[in-house]
């Protein structure tokens, strides 16, 4: 067991805002977001890299924030569910989850929405297979997935219309 552990200074952008923080190396990214930056929209479900509730985007790529150290996000841009709405307007993906009843308890929802963000950023017309693959790393204990699937289809349509 090491005696004294030096903290590490890192800089990162979260939802467009720059932060300079000093963290213990073992601090997980999700812990930095929730405990240090008070962004509690990112949830911890399994804490074992399975459920995807903790999914955030790092430089546009979906990652499980319970399975990254905060020091690894040094210099990165992170997007959490709090960063989806703009000027008080919900993001089309957020609206679609509401309109298509894509959530019940909502615990898994931020993770699903960020997985959908990565998908729709690269693929404006996802096939059924594309959608299933995109959310294969996210678990929902309530909805049975069908409405989540429909919500992402709806979001894809609405976002295409808006472009």
């Amino acid at each position, binding site marked *: *067991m*090491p005696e004294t*552990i*030096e903290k*590490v200074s890192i800089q990162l952008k979260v939802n467009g805002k720059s932060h300079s923080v000093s963290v*213990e*190396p*073992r601090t997980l990214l999700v812990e930095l977001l929730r405990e240090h930056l008070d962004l509690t929209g990112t949830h911890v479900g399994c*804490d*074992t*890299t*399975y459920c*995807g509730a903790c*999914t955030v985007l*790092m430089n546009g*790529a*979906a*990652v*499980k924030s*319970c*399975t*990254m*150290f905060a*020091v*690894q996000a*040094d210099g990165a841009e992170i997007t959490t569910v709090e960063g989806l709405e703009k000027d008080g307007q919900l993001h089309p993906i957020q609206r679609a989850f509401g309109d298509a009843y894509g959530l019940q308890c909502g615990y898994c929802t931020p993770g699903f929405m960020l*997985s959908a963000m*990565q998908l729709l950023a690269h693929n404006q017309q996802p096939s059924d297979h594309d959608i299933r*693959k*995109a959310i*294969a*790393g*996210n678990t929902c204990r309530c909805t049975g997935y069908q409405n989540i699937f429909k919500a992402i289809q709806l979001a894809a349509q609405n976002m295409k219309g808006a472009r």
Partner: protein
Amino acid sequence: MYPRAFHYHRAGSLQEAVTMLSQLGDDAKLLAGGQSLIPLMKLRFANPAHLVDLNFVSGTSYIKEENGSLLFGPLTRHAEIENSALAAKIPILHDCAAGIADVQVRNRGTIGGSLAEADPSGDWAVVLMTLSTDVRCLGRNGQRTVALNSFIKDAYTTELAHDELVSEVTVKMPPKGSGGAYLAFKRAAPVYPTASAAVQLTMEGDTCKDAAIALGCVGLTAIKATDAEAALRGKAVTEKSVAAAVEAARTVADPQPDMRGSADYKRTLVGALVKRAIAAAVRRARGEQVEVNHLYA
């Protein structure tokens, strides 16, 4: 869950990482994608006192074609391989990359980390064993090249010395008339397969000129099914020769019963996977576009 506290070191180059490993000693570990190591640290099954982070070393994530081989940087993520047109020139590589876990794990996990981890259920070793694959290892005394078959020694055990790292993975382009396919049976995306089979064939008309068959999750390491290969090599691919190959694969499999299924169940699975993978490999060898997806319970 909190891992035990550790000292964090950020390597600026692969050579510097090697130096750090040799100075810090046995209690130091490399951090690549972290998708095997961090879960183990959170469960406190792994408790390194020092982590040497490779993620900030530039130029370690690439896919290149050179002198008839594909070259992969050690930190090339599964997702980059999945989305690479160059890697898709060897279709079995795409099958492998696209089928590992889920999007989030593929965005982080690396080919170098997978081979170094040598998990008995890991996908890369199974697939790369059916191709001519070399692992470049960088140590204090420079580079050496180790054939994949000698690189993996046992479950979670490789040829790497403590202060040595995987610096590149090279895969020879298969000859003309080749095709391969990789199929796994999984209970869900974010788990390792229950069983898997990789088949790489070189065809001349209906005759199989060469065959490489490897089985995953049914032994302490990936198993090269040499009798199954011999059942096809030099023969026409017919129902009879395929049945012989499947039988030979079932025989050489050495599965352990666990929460994923009984030994018998896995043996049956691996036979069925070999059969389907042969069918897809033959069609691909003929130049057909065949989409291969893992099977889910």
